[in-house]
């Protein structure tokens, strides 16, 4: 009986440990010296593994939205708002989501693999023994780098997505270029941009913390590292979609939609 209870409660324990780890990272954030070099290296590394895939994902994303929304809007007879709908969808949802997938899939898996390999080779133990806290030395720069890159990627997805939508709307659906551009401001507003960036920031944070937690708790040799990477990606995806839902709901509640 007690073993069943223990098994049922195990995920709660894991969630608690993950949260505690997040708090540790938060506390180490303000501890000096800040590892500038590691931060820049990691930011560059994460950017280099995510930029091209993100751009490649953003184009079809924008296109699908443009086609879908464009088709729908045409039936309502409101073609002039296609641009606006496309901007809203890309900036508010598609941008952060595409960013999240890439940050988790490319950036997070790299972080989990790196820290996991260090863990099983006892490098992290060695570091602690040398009197250096691996959370401050390795995790904090990675988390910050991930957040920074996520915000930049989000910007890129928005631009590439909207541009892709424009191309498809104008060329394939015979939309009017002028109307597409002019309608941008009809429904979309500045806070839409902010929420997109906030989401990207939060997603970067979650992806990096989950990946670092899983990596630093890898056990059982090389297979353990593989498992850690796999779990970190799956957990991040789940968390990101839930968090996206929550953030979107809150945003739609507190920011009134613009009435064109």
């Amino acid at each position, binding site marked *: 009986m007690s073993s069943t209870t223990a098994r049922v409660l195990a995920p709660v324990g894991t969630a608690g440990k993950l949260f505690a780890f997040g708090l540790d990272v938060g506390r180490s954030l303000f501890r000096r010296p800040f590892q500038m070099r590691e931060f820049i290296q990691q930011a560059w590394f994460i950017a280099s593994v995510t930029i091209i895939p993100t751009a490649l994902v953003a184009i079809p994303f924008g296109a699908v939205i443009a086609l879908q929304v464009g088709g729908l809007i045409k039936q309502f007879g409101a073609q002039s708002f296609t641009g606006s709908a496309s901007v809203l969808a890309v900036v508010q949802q598609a941008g952060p989501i595409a960013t999240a997938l890439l940050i988790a899939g490319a950036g997070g898996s790299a972080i989990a693999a790196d820290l996991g*390999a*260090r863990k099983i*080779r*006892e*490098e992290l*133990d*060695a*570091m*602690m*023994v*040398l*009197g*250096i*806290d691996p959370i401050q030395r390795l995790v904090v720069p990675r988390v910050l780098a991930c957040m920074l890159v996520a915000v930049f990627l989000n910007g890129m997805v928005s631009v590439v997505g909207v541009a892709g939508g424009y191309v498809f709307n104008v060329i394939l659906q015979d939309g009017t270029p002028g109307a597409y551009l002019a309608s941008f401001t009809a429904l979309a507003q500045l806070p839409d941009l902010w929420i997109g960036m906030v989401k990207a920031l939060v997603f970067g944070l979650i992806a990096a913390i989950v990946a670092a937690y899983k990596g630093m708790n890898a056990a059982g040799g090389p297979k353990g590292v593989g498992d850690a990477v796999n779990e970190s990606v799956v957990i991040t995806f789940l968390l990101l979609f839930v968090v996206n839902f929550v953030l979107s709901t809150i945003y739609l509640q507190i920011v009134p939609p613009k009435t064109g």
Partner: protein
Amino acid sequence: MGVDVEVTNLTKSFGKQLIWKGVTLTLPAGEVSVMLGPSGTGKSVFLKALIGLVKPDEGSIVIEGTDIASCSEKELYEIRKLFGVLFQDGAMFGSMNLYDNVAFPLREHTKKSESEIRDIVMEKMDLVGLLGAEMKLPGEISGGMRKRAGLARALVLDPEILLIDEPDSGLDPVRTSFINQLFIDLNAQIDATFLIVTHDVNSVRVVPDNIGLLYHKHLAMYGPREMLLSSDEPVVRQFLNAQTVGPIGMSEEKDADQLAAEKGMDLPPLPPIPLQLEPSNGIPRRSQRPPGEWCRQNGVTPPPGSFQPFGATAMG
């Protein structure tokens, strides 16, 4: 000058599995101690407990008045600066070359200039015989070299306590002898407290001042080298002389049937106790005791042929 490490009633289990219970010993300041034990008896866990990487369930580990088992994270990071640790595989940082690895603790903890760091790093690299390999990455060198590089890194902050996890695993006998000699020379030079975890009986017979034996989830015996090497205790005797007759079996302990079958068998006579290794410059270490002193003081007759100079008897 090394410091004492006082371990009292240390107990650790992982889940339901007990690792060891009630381990009590003192590593005397400046002396070389060895922790022995059959594979899988938690020797490495013991070593990790000493540096606070593993929290014991009960007991205390007191170093300079601080109890590692219960102190705060901050105190722990502070006390760890007294330690040098050599991990089993060297635990070098894979992304840095050997020079940066060895320089790492200096760059993190001291405000030394790069030229001072260079002098210290080169001195330690020379000590472990790795001059010329500074620019290699840990992945590009052999296990033995990684181990020696790990030793250089452990030494760079002039530790008071040096913990060494299986220095001889994966080394050939010649390199093992060299590394044993290096430990003795180092002890003479820096007077740190040494704890070596190993199961290589040949090293154990000649290197340490004190020997401890972990067996069957407890500390079977801990004391001066001559005490254990002349001991009649079956476990100690079996292990130190690498025999099949005795209480230790292939998996864990032997079962009753097997022990009963062995009952009539006599244990082979104790081999002679060899001389302890001396520093290569011939100047005795501070903690060194004259050969046979413990046996004389405690009225123990050492096995015949003990304490003969090298070459006079067959090697044990």
